[in-house]
């Protein structure tokens, strides 16, 4: 067909046609490429690697990568991400902000009319705001350091792009820590000398061979091992399958210490030790007390490898300030486990080889440092640290930790910092007396209480007066606590910029929204197996960036161009040249260890396999020689008592692990009279945090009446007249949400679960408005774990719920911003 338009503007439109009718939208196609059934490409993700059939410019079909023997069914959600109606299709600016800039009515964030702007204008607006902040205020006014789980791919890692480009302009506020392991990663270096949460653990084959008892402490491996920081391999599942067999054959006992029956317990058919929520420390203290009193602990191990036991024992015996002996009877009243069973549990731990595997949930609560520290003390008393199948780990549920590492080097990443010599436009480093780095979870406090001084990990932090937030591939309106408090804070921000591919709540509460493409619309590469380093996976672009979206690389190249530093930013290299550069760097790093094909071959094949690594025991070297292979603690030994922490003089994190009552706690704890139900907001089973919640068809496989499920105890539900499938209003003094009831005996009385990552969908922008989908962080409290980590305390949360009555509001999320009329 030939194409006409202008030449036929006659009749009705004869004279005006040229203005009223724009240019045509169709063109004569170039020699069409012949596509019969499409082309198979390979790519990766946090959910694993896959092959995708692309036909007619569309991803038609996805199947798991053949190396992955245990693929997650979340692969079924990928197409729904790419083609979601929630996609940000164009650069958009909040209309009111566009008209009035920093004088805009910020209470209207979340009730938005947006207008589309060109990329050119969007980048100009973005740049001009950065410029205004630096000149009008200073580096303390911009926070561009909050980052999240990004999309996978080493070239396009969005946090790196944001950091590099914005640093070329000027200094900004940065963060330390993360929302997953804030307390754990801060306390453990004092105790065992590394973060432990991001460390390789003893290899599964050694655990399977040597462990007689495995204690899963608040740890749901089967749920959480579905996703990985880099492209996930799911190799752990092979070992979980073997473990299941060994449990059936009574070769290994696995006991899950948890208020709920986890997916792992269901899968393994293992044992359960119920415990009241947030009371792990009393249970642990009573175990320690039993071991001490019954003389069951390993004195020799403590003498050789640990410091500070003698300073800890008086606390155990009630000879310190609290005058409370940590007996099993004392603990029973708090943790709900019979004193005799506590003692039995203690005796069981020392009987044979015991591997303790701690999850991250128990440190995502107030005083979250304590259970982590106390668990290490217990493991020290057992004396099995450094033995295969013994000791303690804090990460076997994460990114295939425990699958032995090949030792191969992975590809590097796109540089996070500007190259030297820097050409930073604003060289001003004067933070006006504010701190330049803040604990990650305290940024809302900064906005609400600028100038306030807080203690954090041995330092005094003065909260900066943040006026502008920049987010890239980061959704704090999912991961931060207490939505209504966030609304208040956002009223005080002058400008918010978000870069993402989908209209998250963060984007909906922003002023400038830039459309990134998904990771499947760009070329990249990734490490296959974060800790196992199983191989290198190619991420071949499946389709071109949809609509007007761009890769992170392109977006920040545009900003760098605005700064006159495009060449410096890209180093004169294109996307594909970066992919090749990172690959070639990886080849060099592996020289002499692993033979890798040339880039062309790799890209065609899509995968380099490094095979399997050698089995390894965590802390075995330390056990062998604690002098030569000292731990990274101040003393080089396990620190049961930390002089350093003691000297900080903190109230809620002192020289040794202790029990502190929580601000809210169920089962007779504070606040439970008014809000009796403990709400846990653990990592989701069918998402990666908030990623994939926008994938509609996949979401519909688990929602209840279109809402996020709330898992309820049958008695609790019955008491409230709630049946499976009902809509439930969940509330406390901080907020309210709608969720769909899933009644299950896996959940103890007084316990409920809403998985984090459920998208925030308030009825309107006002403070207190009902969340129509079920984001648990509408209800959680934004308080720090302690003066040490200043981390999130999401799991310290009491709620009440009732059957929802009245007109059911539609879910407002999973689409672009809404104007409330």
């Amino acid at each position, binding site marked *: *067909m030939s194409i006409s338009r202008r030449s036929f503007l006659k009749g*009705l439109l004869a004279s005006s046609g040229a203005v*009223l009718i724009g240019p045509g939208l169709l063109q004569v196609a170039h020699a069409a490429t012949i596509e019969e059934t499409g082309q198979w490409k390979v790519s990766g993700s946090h959910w694993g690697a896959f092959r995708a059939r692309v036909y*007619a410019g569309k991803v038609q079909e996805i199947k798991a990568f053949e190396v992955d023997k245990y693929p997650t069914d979340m692969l079924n959600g990928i197409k*729904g991400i790419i083609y979601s*109606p929630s996609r940000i299709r*164009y650069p958009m600016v909040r209309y009111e902000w566009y008209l009035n800039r920093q004088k805009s009515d910020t209470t209207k964030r979340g009730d938005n009319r947006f207008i589309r702007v060109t990329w050119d204008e969007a980048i100009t607006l973005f740049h001009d705001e950065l410029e205004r902040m630096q000149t009008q205020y200073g580096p303390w006014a911009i926070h561009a350091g909050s980052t999240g789980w990004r999309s996978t791919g080493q070239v396009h890692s969005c946090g790196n792009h944001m950091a590099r480009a914005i640093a070329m302009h000027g200094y900004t506020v940065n963060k330390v820590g993360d929302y997953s392991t804030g307390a754990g990663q801060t306390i453990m270096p004092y105790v065992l000398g590394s973060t432990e949460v991001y460390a390789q653990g003893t290899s599964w084959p050694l655990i399977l061979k040597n462990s007689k008892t495995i204690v899963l402490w608040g740890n749901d491996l089967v749920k959480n091992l579905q996703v990985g920081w880099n492209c996930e391999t799911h190799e752990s599942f092979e070992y979980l399958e073997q473990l299941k067999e060994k449990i059936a054959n009574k070769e290994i006992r696995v006991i899950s210490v948890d208020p709920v029956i986890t997916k792992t317990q269901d899968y393994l058919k293992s044992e359960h030790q119920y415990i009241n929520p947030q009371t792990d420390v009393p249970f642990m203290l009573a175990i320690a007390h039993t071991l001490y009193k019954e003389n069951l602990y390993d004195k020799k191990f403590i003498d050789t490898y640990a410091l500070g036991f003698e300073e800890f024992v008086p606390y155990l015996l009630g000879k310190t300030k609290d005058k409370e002996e940590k007996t099993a009877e004392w603990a029973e009243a708090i943790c709900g486990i019979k004193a005799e069973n506590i003692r039995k549990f203690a005796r069981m731990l020392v009987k044979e080889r015991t591997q303790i595997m701690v999850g991250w949930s128990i440190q995502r609560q107030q005083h979250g440092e304590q259970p982590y520290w106390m668990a290490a003390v217990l493991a020290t008393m057992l004396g099995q640290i450094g033995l295969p199948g013994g000791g303690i780990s804090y990460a076997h549920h994460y990114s295939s930790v425990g699958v032995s590492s090949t030792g191969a080097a992975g590809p590097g990443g796109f540089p996070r910092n500007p190259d030297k010599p820097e050409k930073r436009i604003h060289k001003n480093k004067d933070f006006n007396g504010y701190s330049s780095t803040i604990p990650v979870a305290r940024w809302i406090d900064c906005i609400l209480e600028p100038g306030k001084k807080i203690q954090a990990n041995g330092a005094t932090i003065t909260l900066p007066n943040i006026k502008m937030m920049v987010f890239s591939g980061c959704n704090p309106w999912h991961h931060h606590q207490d939505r209504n408090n966030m609304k208040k804070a956002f009223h005080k921000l002058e400008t918010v910029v978000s870069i993402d591919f989908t209209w998250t709540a963060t984007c909906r509460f922003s002023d400038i929204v830039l459309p990134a493409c998904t990771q499947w619309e760009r070329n990249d590469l990734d490490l296959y197996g974060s800790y196992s380093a199983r191989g290198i996976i190619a991420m071949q672009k499946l389709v071109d960036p949809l609509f007007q979206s761009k890769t992170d690389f392109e977006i920040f190249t545009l900003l760098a161009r605005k700064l006159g530093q495009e060449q410096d930013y890209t180093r004169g290299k294109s996307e594909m040249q970066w992919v090749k550069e990172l690959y070639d760097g990886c080849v060099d790093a592996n020289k002499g260890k692993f033979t890798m094909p040339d880039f062309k071959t790799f890209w065609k094949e899509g995968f380099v396999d490094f095979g399997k690594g050698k089995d390894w025991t965590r802390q075995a070297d330390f056990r062998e020689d604690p002098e030569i292979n000292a731990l990274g603690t101040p003393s080089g030994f396990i620190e049961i008592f930390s002089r350093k922490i003691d000297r900080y003089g903190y109230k809620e994190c002192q020289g040794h692990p202790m029990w502190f009552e929580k601000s809210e706690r169920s089962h007779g704890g504070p606040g439970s009279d008014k809000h009796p139900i403990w709400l846990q907001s653990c990592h989701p089973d069918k998402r990666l945090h908030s990623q994939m919640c926008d994938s*509609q068809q996949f979401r519909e496989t688990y929602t209840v009446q279109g809402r996020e499920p709330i898992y309820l105890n049958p008695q609790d539900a019955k008491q409230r007249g709630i049946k499976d499938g009902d809509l439930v209003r969940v509330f406390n003094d901080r907020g309210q949400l709608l969720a769909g009831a899933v009644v299950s005996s896996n959940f103890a009385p007084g316990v409920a679960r809403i998985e984090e990552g459920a998208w925030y969908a308030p009825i309107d922008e006002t403070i207190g408005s009902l969340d129509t989908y079920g984001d648990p962080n509408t209800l959680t409290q934004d308080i720090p774990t302690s003066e040490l980590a200043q981390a999130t305390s999401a799991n310290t949360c009491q709620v009440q719920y009732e059957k929802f009555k009245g007109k059911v509001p539609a879910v407002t999320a999973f689409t672009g911003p809404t104007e409330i009329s």
Partner: protein
Amino acid sequence: MKNSENNEQRASLYWWFSTLLSKELTTEQLTHYFSGEGVELLNQLAQESLFSETVTQIKSALVIIMAIKQPTLELAADFSQLFLTDAKKGAPPYASVYLSKSGQLFEKPHQEMVELFKKEGLMVDPNFKEPADHIAIQLDYLGNLIIKEGENNSQAQTNFINNQLLSWLPPFVEATKRVNNSGFYQGVCQLLLLFIKQDITALKQQ
């Protein structure tokens, strides 16, 4: 009127609708709807009794818009609210959203348009970067189809209108009506639907 002239007029009107629904009006374009050929066009359309009420709606919307300080931006915000942001409360201009069970983009209607373009040796302007089932692309194609067929058999047009447009235009137009703003684009979409319905009736009578 000669058939060829009639066809050119039909094509032009489809292209006009296509232009209105492809992107926001520029200030220059908008001026023509206040005093200029846009007004003439609307007046002529209003003479057709079937269209008069809707044209009146469009004109009143323009009066509302004109009274606002920045009419171009205001109309752009209307456009965005309807077509670019809220896919649930707005009216995404893609057939897939209305016709596919998934409610996703790039579904079967997009595929059908891609196949059709392939057959015809056409492609969407790479700068437009929209799925092929975008209303503006479909209307653009229809205009071209009319010109190509000239006075010949109109079966292809009838089929295209029935299968690719009338299959989803009614719910699309309904969706626009749920959005509360100046009403300009709601009027335009309603007018498009009326025009198409009249056009298909005329085609059948040929």
